[in-house]
């Protein structure tokens, strides 16, 4: 096995189909670890992992830190609000300081698209994992969404998820709904689902679609309600008020009426359709509260699977081998 490997996880595109399949396969082994009464393995003992979150987060940060601890790595978490970043230290100096302490992996979230790519070019030996950069990408979220969908499909068939491989994604119809324009989750999901062979359709008001869809292997739904009936998976996105989404729609109430997954609209879904949401959910905006609590809505499973998937990423980067499509492109 001498294929290309990934040094970092910056984009889902770094992995290619084989890389995604390998992450899902290894994550299944870690999901078993998580079901044990002592859900901890000594795999990354002596390794140090740092989380650098320049933007707020609940589940992603907790999930990465839990994953690292369950692998017995030491975790340092930089609270940006109380760090020298507030004194004006640059990202580069912060990263160099962190690396000088002998850190093996840097998990970074930043409001600027491309920040993790920049960091990856600065580090000498540390691995860089993108935990969300601006509007660009959130690769681990997309991977855990795929993992969760496969788990649900396997459960219904009464087989172990690893037995399905990635064939279960072939021709799967995925409908991504909402604020695609500002969503890094949507970008990563489009890359992940299409790499696995699924057909992705976007449904959003024109103002919340990206300015150009050129080169994107997706379709745009003309009729949202009709598209719902065709979907196997509905991926809802949060309306991102902190990125100014509010000004792209006339009013929240109108947005909900036209694009929200309301109790009435959910009746259009096929019986087998699965609803995912990366969280945090805005109940009553993009998803009705009753719908959020339906069994077909797998938000809680997504959160628990997040730990297993992130364990797989950390393990593959620091101890195993993460298949990929090649090195980080050298951008000036």
């Amino acid at each position: 096995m001498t294929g290309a490997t990934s040094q970092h996880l910056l984009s889902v595109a770094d992995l290619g189909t084989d890389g995604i399949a390998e992450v899902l396969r290894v994550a299944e082994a870690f999901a078993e670890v998580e079901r044990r009464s002592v859900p901890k393995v000594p795999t990354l003992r002596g390794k140090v992992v740092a989380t650098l979150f320049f933007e707020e987060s609940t589940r992603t940060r907790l999930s990465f830190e839990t994953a690292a601890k369950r692998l017995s790595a030491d975790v340092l978490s930089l609270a940006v609000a109380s760090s020298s970043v507030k004194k004006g230290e640059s990202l580069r100096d912060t990263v160099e300081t962190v690396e000088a302490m002998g850190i093996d992996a840097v998990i970074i979230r930043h409001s600027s698209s491309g920040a993790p790519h920049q960091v990856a070019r600065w580090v000498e030996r540390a691995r860089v994992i993108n935990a969300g950069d601006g509007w660009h990408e959130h690769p681990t979220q997309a991977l855990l969404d795929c993992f969760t969908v496969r788990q649900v499909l396997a459960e219904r068939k009464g087989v172990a998820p690893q037995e399905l491989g990635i064939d279960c994604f072939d021709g799967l119809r995925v409908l991504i709904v909402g604020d695609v324009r500002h969503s890094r989750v949507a970008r990563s999901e489009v890359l992940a689902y299409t790499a696995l062979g699924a057909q992705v359709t976007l449904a959003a008001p024109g103002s919340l679609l990206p300015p150009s869809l050129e080169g994107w292997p997706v379709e745009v739904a003309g009729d949202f309600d009709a598209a719902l009936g065709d979907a196997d998976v509905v991926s809802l996105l949060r309306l991102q008020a902190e990125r100014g989404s509010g000004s792209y729609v006339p009013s929240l109430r109108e947005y909900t009426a036209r694009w929200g997954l309301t109790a009435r609209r959910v009746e259009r879904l096929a019986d087998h359709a699965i609803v995912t949401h990366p969280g945090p959910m805005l109940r009553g905006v993009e998803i009705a509260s009753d719908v959020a609590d339906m069994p077909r809505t797998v938000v809680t499973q997504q959160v628990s699977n997040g730990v297993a998937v992130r364990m797989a990423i950390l393990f593959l980067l620091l101890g195993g081998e993460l298949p990929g499509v090649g090195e980080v492109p050298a951008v000036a």
Partner: protein
Amino acid sequence: MAERERSHTRPLGGVFVAHSQVLTSADVQRALTRMSHEIVERNGGVQDVVLVGLQTGGVPLATKMSEILNQIEDAKIATGSLDVAFYRDDIGLRPVLPEAVTDIPVDLAGRVVVLVDDVLFTGRTIRAALNALSDFGRARAIQLAVMVDRGHRELPIRPDYVGKNLPTRREEMVDVGEDGVWIGTLEDK
């Protein structure tokens, strides 16, 4: 058997080239039957025994052994499988990847665990397995059954039940499969 792709030694890769046969599949079956009787004799039955096959080579042997034990003792013996990748001591030295999902069906506290593997070599896999098993409860005893003991131990580990003691050179390779036990070498693809 001329050549066989060794998919389950993925970190090494390469093609296994067989040189000579050591045991036929009938020999393997007879050895499994004898070892099963030894397990029964040593433990005075199988009521507390749990078989755990090591991924990947030990799993089919553990399955066959459980069938034999169930037959001779009229029991329903608990059988699981264990992947030790997360417990290996060479993580970071070479790419280590899990082969399969671990499945330990019962709490091991108070049970007698019989670890089953195809080939005992350096003993490092067994060391990793012992660490892994301790995460599933405090077993009353852990015993080791291997089809082939080929020597070259690097740790103070010895088997309790052996199919065949087979002196080998370090660079040789032993393959245990459906078609018996073969000795050969691992060649580049």
